[in-house]
């Protein structure tokens, strides 16, 4: 066996520190932590700096022009002398593309998240995840370039065909499904076993005819649309939707995962199908997380600059009618990016400060969105934490 004799304790170190050593040690630890804390604070408090500096440079604008013109006027002529700074169309533009993007990204994103967390086998998931990550990683200027150079000409030259194809792809399966379900539901009152089948077939056929009519009429309508310019709100909304997708998918997938196995098993044990389990138990349980995902998606779309700058047309106008996505619009981010070049030289003028006012609005929006998202996440955690 090993020789146990030669144990040599280092005699020098004593358990008890001298008063000075003790002080030095305590001070060192305190100082170290203090430095860590200070550095961390700098990193974290940068956001307050941002708020301060953006607010500071936007005050001169509000001081000289007040709020009414900025928020309610529709005339945006910053380069005129004297300038006119009605930013309402720009707010509307930002709102339009954000809404459009969210309408695209949230349903698709949540569906994809559900599929990822509950439908697909693990191996497929491993393949799909990187797709999402790569979608998220592509720089926004590349999306913008695509929107401008590939998608906009496509929309302009064959916009009606694009819209028609989209209509067929989206509406076709939806209506088919709707017909089958409605056909079934509308005959539940028929109690007589003998007649049930016949009734169902009749009802399905009837509803099917209506649906087919809707489908064809919709396609006709889409086919008749002419798109004047490819750089419009629709283009930007689609691209922003794609950009917001990864955020929505990953955050809502986290929420769905967090809902836990027990909940699912409980529902399956009662004989519910997967769809019912998900719709009735899991989605409600994860609703807060999904709302948080939507908020984060909104933030992504709202704060995006390059795509809207390149492909939205940059026309400061409220579309006619206001939901006309085929008109060019202008957003806050694009205005800041585009106008600073000219405003830069005349530091101190309203033209310069109005851009900071817009930045402040963006900052405030995203701050509120972030707060809401955080609140949703916290609520989700509380809910699943069993309170």
């Amino acid at each position, binding site marked *: 066996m090993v020789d146990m004799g030669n144990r040599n304790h280092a005699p020098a170190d004593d358990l008890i*520190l001298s008063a000075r050593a003790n002080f030095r040690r305590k001070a060192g630890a305190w100082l170290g932590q203090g430095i860590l804390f200070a550095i961390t604070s700098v990193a974290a408090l940068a956001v307050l700096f941002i708020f301060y500096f953006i607010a500071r440079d936007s005050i001169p604008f509000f001081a000289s022009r007040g709020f009414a013109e900025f928020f309610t006027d529709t005339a945006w002529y910053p380069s005129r002398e004297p300038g006119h700074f009605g930013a309402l169309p720009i707010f509307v533009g930002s709102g339009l593309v954000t809404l459009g993007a969210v309408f695209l990204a949230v349903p698709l994103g949540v569906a994809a998240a559900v599929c990822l967390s509950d439908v697909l086998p693990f191996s497929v998931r491993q393949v799909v995840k990187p797709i999402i990550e790569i979608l998220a990683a592509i720089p926004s200027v590349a999306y913008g370039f695509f929107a401008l150079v590939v998608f906009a000409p496509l929309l302009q030259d064959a916009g009606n065909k694009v819209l028609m194809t989209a209509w067929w792809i989206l509406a076709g399966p939806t209506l088919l499904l709707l017909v089958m379900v409605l056909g079934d539901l509308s005959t539940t009152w028929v109690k007589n076993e003998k007649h049930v089948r016949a009734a169902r077939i009749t009802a399905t056929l009837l509803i099917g005819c209506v649906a087919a009519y809707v489908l064809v009429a919709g396609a006709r309508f889409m086919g008749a649309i002419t798109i004047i310019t490819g750089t419009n709100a629709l283009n930007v909304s689609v691209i922003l939707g794609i950009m917001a997708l990864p955020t929505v998918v990953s955050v809502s997938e986290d929420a769905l995962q967090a809902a836990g196995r027990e909940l699912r098993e409980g529902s399956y044990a009662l004989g519910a199908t997967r769809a019912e389990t998900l719709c009735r138990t899991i989605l409600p349980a994860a609703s807060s997380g999904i709302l948080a995902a939507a908020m984060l998606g909104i933030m992504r779309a709202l704060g995006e600059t390059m795509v809207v700058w390149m492909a939205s047309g940059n026309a400061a106008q409220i579309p006619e009618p206001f939901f006309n996505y085929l008109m060019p619009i202008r957003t806050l981010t694009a205005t800041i990016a585009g106008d600073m070049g000219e405003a830069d030289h005349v530091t101190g003028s309203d033209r310069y400060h109005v851009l900071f006012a817009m930045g402040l609005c963006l900052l405030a929006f995203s701050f509120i969105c972030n707060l809401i998202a955080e609140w949703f996440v916290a609520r989700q955690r509380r809910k699943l934490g069993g309170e």
Partner: protein
Amino acid sequence: MNNIPTSEFAVRRPPAVSVKTPRNPAQAGNGNQLMADSFSVYYGPFEAVKKVSCAFPVGEVTALIGPSGCGKSTFLRAINRMNDLIPSCHVKGLLYFGGKRIYGPKLDVTVLRRRIGMVFQKPNPFPKSIYDNVAYGPRLHASCSRRDLDERVETSLRKAALWDEVKDRLQANALGLSGGQQQRLCLARALAVNPEVLLMDEPTSALDPKATAAIEDLIDALRGAYTIIIVTHNMQQAARVSDLTAFLYEGSLIEVGATSQLFTNPKEKRTEDYITGRFG
């Protein structure tokens, strides 16, 4: 007591040798003795260890037994102040090491932990090479030459009876070792800083019988040179390796005594119930 055949506890050494009564700290020879005096540990308001008073004789192996959740780990971790990591944890009462208060204001925790080593329930080698694992402690505390370090690593690995198995692959990742080897590596790592006391929290619970036997042999070999406190759920193990046994129940120290005596002739009813398997 009669319902347990004594033969079930394979006490390795004759009782006469192993039966030792706790000595007075003043008498504690050349080593430093561990002693608890009405020592309590709290998690927030919850008192996990309640007013324990006892002494751990130098150079002997003491087993801590007791039902799950009775505070064995808590007590053990309190000894080298690992509980400092848990924010809600605080202590009352006194705990001495070599006559000095472990929770005293001027105590140097790093020195304390160097002198009171610990082996955990789950083998936890660092994700580094075998060599770096063992050399980690010495490198921390002394700036030794490369040769000294090599020697230190070798002796520690020899003490842990691992040298022959790993001497050809000292630079291999420690996570590539088997569970038993990893645990012995952790032991070697703890020995490499020359501690006086070794705390072991269920060191064999994650191991198979063969690896367990190897660890037990090691403990046996280290006896005398180190003061060892071992937590175990395995009564046979306690009987096999320890000189003294302490029984904890719901945070209180119910009984402590020579192993042979405690297992054959417990003074307390609860001890008897526990070791005969009526509860816990």
